[in-house]
């Protein structure tokens, strides 16, 4: 009961934050992207955390979502909300297509295969100029502001939509984790052969996880496109900009936990922004270098993520409480 109250308090506090930030300012933009990346990392967490398959290719589905809604809006004037559903369907389909051949791969092999799939999508988006505009990218056209058209003058509504998306994706993650599917995935994670013997249809469960994860992140691709307004293949299908970044957020926060991606996003995204602000003017590459050093340090210090800091704190508190 206490935990639910605490959770509700956190959500309310986060919901109030956009009202305090300057609606035309820089920080509300950072805040919106933080929420969006937290949701993306949470969607990744279904495959990367629950099914224990480290995907380095989730940009493939994310980019599909961004391009589907924007192309539908540009060519047919279809509202991005509907475009988001179409993108989600296509993203889920793409996840199925790549999951079928790669599903039995594990660990490093799976990471490599998904990495290559993301690159395939990036190359296609760069070459298929008539549809995607090629390397020049796409601009989301301006339409009169309204909720139905997913167009707003200020960033505040975008922040709330991103927050709602984070709550929904986190809820889906928790429902899966606590439900029968979560138990099946954990059984596969611990011992695939034993899971098969006790009657878990391992193929089916892994495919389900991949499709849910792919569809969710594709839908978030639409939200990203609407906030960013302009994007190109190398951004939305990028290895470093999307695939590695979202996996990193989940890993630094703590893989396989609902709080992990949120902690990770609130650490990494603002940190990146601050470093870009402070260091980019000094020398190219410095902020990314610092970022890499922090990443290595966190992994050496906490190979299982930041979330373990709370565990050891709690253990220490309860020990000192008992004595």
């Amino acid at each position, binding site marked *: 009961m206490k935990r639910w109250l605490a959770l509700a308090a956190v959500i309310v506090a986060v919901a109030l934050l956009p009202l305090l930030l300057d609606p035309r300012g820089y920080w509300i933009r950072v805040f919106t992207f933080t929420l969006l990346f937290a949701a993306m990392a949470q969607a990744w967490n279904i495959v*990367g955390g629950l099914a224990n398959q*480290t995907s*380095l290719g989730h940009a493939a589905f994310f980019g599909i979502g961004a391009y589907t809604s924007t192309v539908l809006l540009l060519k047919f004037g279809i509202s991005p909300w509907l475009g988001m559903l179409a993108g989600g369907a296509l993203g889920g389909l793409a996840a199925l297509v*790549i999951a079928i*051949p*790669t599903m*039995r*791969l594990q*660990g*490093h*092999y799976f*990471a*490599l*295969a998904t*990495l*290559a*799939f993301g*690159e*395939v999508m990036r*190359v*296609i988006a*760069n*070459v298929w100029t008539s549809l995607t505009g090629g390397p020049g990218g796409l601009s989301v056209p301006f339409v009169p502001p309204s909720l139905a058209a997913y167009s707003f003058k200020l960033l505040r509504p975008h922040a709330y939509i991103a927050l709602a998306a984070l709550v929904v994706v986190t809820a889906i993650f928790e429902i899966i984790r606590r439900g029968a599917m979560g138990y099946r995935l954990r059984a596969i994670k611990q011992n695939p052969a034993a899971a098969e013997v006790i009657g878990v249809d391992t193929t089916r469960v892994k495919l389900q996880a991949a499709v849910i994860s792919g569809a969710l992140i594709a839908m978030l691709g639409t939200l990203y496109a609407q906030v960013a307004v302009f994007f190109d293949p190398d951004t939305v299908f990028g290895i*470093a900009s999307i695939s*590695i970044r979202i*996996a*990193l957020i989940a*890993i630094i926060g703590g*893989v396989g936990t609902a709080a992990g991606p949120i902690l990770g996003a609130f650490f990494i995204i603002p940190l990146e922004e601050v470093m870009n602000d402070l260091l980019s003017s000094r*020398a*190219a*590459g*410095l902020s*990314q*270098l610092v*970022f*890499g*050093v922090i*990443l*290595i340090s966190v*992994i*050496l210090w906490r*190979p*299982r993520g930041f979330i373990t800091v709370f565990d050891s704190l709690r253990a220490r508190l309860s020990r000192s409480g008992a004595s």
Partner: protein
Amino acid sequence: MSFLQAILDGLLIGGVYAVISIGLTLVYGVMGIVNFAQAEFLTIGMFTAWFAWAFLGLDPVLAAPLSFAVAFAIGWVVQGQLIARVLSAPSVAQIFLTVGLLIVIENGTLLLFGSQFRSVTTSYQTISLSLGPLFISIPYLIAFAMSLACGVALWWFMRASWFGRAMRATAQNPAAARLMGIDTALMYKMAFALGVGLTAFGGAVILPYVTVYPGVGGQFVVLMFTVVVLGGLGSVAGAVVGGLSVGVIQSLSSLFFPIQLQNLVLFIVFILVLAVRPQGLVGASR
């Protein structure tokens, strides 16, 4: 005839691919770690050779042992200080440690040397031999010959030297190797340093026909993985077959597809091989 020419070019380029990828497969074979930062050592090797050429007037091909030594030293420290700590950690931690290393090296070189493209000029750069109707590019041929020499040296080292045998023993069974008095931590350092050294060596020998800049390693990442996966991750002989195949595939696909799609063919081959035969085409049952 252009078909035969493409195969010849592919084989020559592929020999170099084999050497730069052997390091990746060696590290995996001995420690079970996929080093995502491996291609960055190619960048290090290329920069070392470029500076040796620019300041010492050394031909990049002769600077290759220097590139090897620089990367070997860096690799030794990286293994001892960083990789050794995650050997028993979950695979996500291993993957992201080397990803972090990739980010650090790529941006470190950017910070130190700037983003401009650098190339060398050599006397043999534009010369080619004619062999009947075929042409053999001299820089390709030299790079191939150097790679071959390096591969033979490695083969001798792994087969005949005590270190090589100790390293193979460590790969097969670390616990048993320790019981036989082998310092496995030392072997891991040796394997990692040797692996990244080979990749840097390959970087130096391609410098006459590839320009160097901080992101150049990124161009080779998927290529190197394709090579090792084709040959079977962990198999050194497989990497040679994989390297030659990738060279030929790349060269042939440039006959039929526009240049932008060249890598696409490679990626698709890569995913198909992983899906159908993850143990590699050669299928060494390591």
